[in-house]
């Protein structure tokens, strides 16, 4: 016998994790755009300011150097010193060097590197060596060869321009962080609301997935997109419920309408039987007809019973059920039947905790499974009714040594009226085949939220497992 994955009643799969609300994505995208645009803006402003202020500084330097070039050589140091007096902020520097670049006067100690004596404004990359020390701050400088052969050097720190640039950058940085941080926090908080509502919708839709079509999604009354979506789903559910109701209604109506003529047929046959002679060969024929009509009526009864079980949503009949006792009673009921067929029916049960359920219906479900197992097991075979206490609840297994259920037919046997091909040959009017039995079991399991699983027995044969806990919603599919 091939060992394949056991089949369970179809059950809704839970939503996997890792979902992100659309608000978060929008905020992140928007934030990234905003950040990039702000950086471009700050860059442009600070670059333009620096350019402008450098131009101004350059102009001042140019004017001074040309003015000083016209002053007499002997008055030059004094004039330089005098001009320096006016520079209150100490940003202007002067230096006079001889032809060999040796210091003559002024507050610049050495000719700055990279400064050609052509009267053009230049950046001083290495800073400035002044009488008060070396400074790495950015500065602009100009050098001019005087007619006397001496070198006049003027320099000015561009610290003002730099500070303005820094201020612009700082200001925009602050503004950005003040925008972005509350924006991100706000976005997170905003996204939590819809997420919570989506979770609420998920919870609300669970009963629908379990087959209770009367449930609708909650509307917040905010008339936003989530409400809109929920309203659309609710409209869809109305339609689905109506359609399913129609289909079920048709099934029920057929079963219902057929019953009256069948009942009359049964009654008339019965009357014929009552009035006919026991020796008449036709009496036997009538009797066989009655048996057939009876089995037909039984099917209709079972069909309507399943229909009503599926409709049953309330758990009013639920009480403490001693499954151990139920199993013993099932064993007591079927042991003689098994013995008659030459099958050993064994009950292997651990002490079991009580469950909340409908005792007669659970008895019926287990009986059906045992009845099926006995029906499909050949003589000298064995059927075992096992029960064990698992951490999540009680597991009941009905294992037989019959032909087993082919993997491809497992889902189908749970449907109404399905009959396994392996058994259709016996043509026994006794209701061979799974018939409605397993559908009844499935309906009872579903009513309790239990799972029914059809699998293989290790040594061949079928293994029907009833997990007596709320597993239908937990979605434990693989076994």
């Amino acid at each position, binding site marked *: 016998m091939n060992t394949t994955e056991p089949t369970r009643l179809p059950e809704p799969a839970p939503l996997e994790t890792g979902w992100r609300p659309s608000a978060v994505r929008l905020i992140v995208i928007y934030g990234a755009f905003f950040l990039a645009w702000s950086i471009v803006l700050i860059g442009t402003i600070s670059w333009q300011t620096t350019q402008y202020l450098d131009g101004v500084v350059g102009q001042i330097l140019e004017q001074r150097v040309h003015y000083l070039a016209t002053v007499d050589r002997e008055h030059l140091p004094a004039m330089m010193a005098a001009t320096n007096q006016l520079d209150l902020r100490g940003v202007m520097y002067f230096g006079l060097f001889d032809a060999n670049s040796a210091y003559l006067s002024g507050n610049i100690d050495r000719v700055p590197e990279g400064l050609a004596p052509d009267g053009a404004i230049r950046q001083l990359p290495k800073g400035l060596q002044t009488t008060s020390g070396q400074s790495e701050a950015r500065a602009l400088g100009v050098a001019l060869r005087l007619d006397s052969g001496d070198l006049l050097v003027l320099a000015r720190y561009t610290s003002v321009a730099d500070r303005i640039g820094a201020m612009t950058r700082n200001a925009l940085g602050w503004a950005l962080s003040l925008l972005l941080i509350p924006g991100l926090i706000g976005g997170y908080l905003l996204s939590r609301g819809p997420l919570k509502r989506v979770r609420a919708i998920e919870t609300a839709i669970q009963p629908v997935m379990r087959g209770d079509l009367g449930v609708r999604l909650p509307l917040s009354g905010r008339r936003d997109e989530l409400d809109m979506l929920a309203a659309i789903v609710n409209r869809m559910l109305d339609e689905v419920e109506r359609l399913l109701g129609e289909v079920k209604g048709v099934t029920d109506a057929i079963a219902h309408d057929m*019953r009256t003529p069948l*009942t009359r047929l049964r009654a008339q046959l019965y009357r014929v039987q009552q009035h006919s002679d026991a020796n008449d060969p036709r009496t036997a024929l009538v009797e066989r007809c009655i048996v057939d009509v009876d089995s037909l009526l039984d099917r*209709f009864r079972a069909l309507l019973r399943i229909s009503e079980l599926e409709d049953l949503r309330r758990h009013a009949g639920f009480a403490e059920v001693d499954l151990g006792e139920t199993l013993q009673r099932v064993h007591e009921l079927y042991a003689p039947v098994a013995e008659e067929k030459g099958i050993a029916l064994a009950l292997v049960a651990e002490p079991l905790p009580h469950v909340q359920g409908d005792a007669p219906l659970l008895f019926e479900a287990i009986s059906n499974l045992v009845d099926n197992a006995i029906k499909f097991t050949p003589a000298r075979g064995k059927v075992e009714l096992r029960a064990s206490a698992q951490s999540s609840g009680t597991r009941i297994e009905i294992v037989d040594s019959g032909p087993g259920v082919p993997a491809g037919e497992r889902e189908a046997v749970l449907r109404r009226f399905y009959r396994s091909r392996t058994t259709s040959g016996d043509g026994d009017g006794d209701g061979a085949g799974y018939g409605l039995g397993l559908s009844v079991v499935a309906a009872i399991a579903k009513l309790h939220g239990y799972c029914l699983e059809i699998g293989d027995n290790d040594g061949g044969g079928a293994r029907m497992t009833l997990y007596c806990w709320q597993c239908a919603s937990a979605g434990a599919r693989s076994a």
Partner: protein
Amino acid sequence: MARILTIEDDPVTAREIVSELQAYGNEVECVGDGRAGLDHALRGGYDAITLDRMLPGMDGLAVVTELRRAGVDTPVLMISALSDVDARVRGLRAGGDDYLTKPFAPDEMAARVEVLLRRRRAGAPDTLLRVGDLELDLIARRARRGEVTLELLPLEFRLLEFLMRNSDQVLTRTMIFESVWGYHFDPGTNVIDVHIARLRRKVDAGDGPTLIHTVRGCGYKIQTAE
């Protein structure tokens, strides 16, 4: 002869019920509406009532509730197109009444009415049941056929008790299963037949006349020779 009230709105079904019950030698009155039915039933004088669950005027379950409130304890056989998974149906059965789902076999319906009638007539609870030379002592939980004591399992004892309480009366497999096991579904295959066969091997083992009879196409009956 028992007086029976049939409350049923479908004329064809009503005719079936009436003619079948009359065939069993009962006097039957028929009403087609819930409220009128309740009035009749309250006036009393009936030994049993068959009652449709879905009636114009008044729901069948409400009729029973009203009857019991008025202190009328006439046993009721409720006949319904609805199956019996409803909790209220369990309440009905717990109260000593019976429930039969449509479609039903008329003979089964009549048999159920007979059981209700007999339970009503029984009066003081029996302590010793006797059919021919078969004796069942309900106090000592002992069974005896002639001089031979029968070794019965508790389940077999309950089964024999039910048969003997309703001796000379046809009992369908469903009725036996419902009364002895207390469950209301079709146990399938030939479960009841097997249990009866086992009981029969113990009860009818000796030379004496057969007591447990099979009624073809219907069920079983315990009685002394025809």
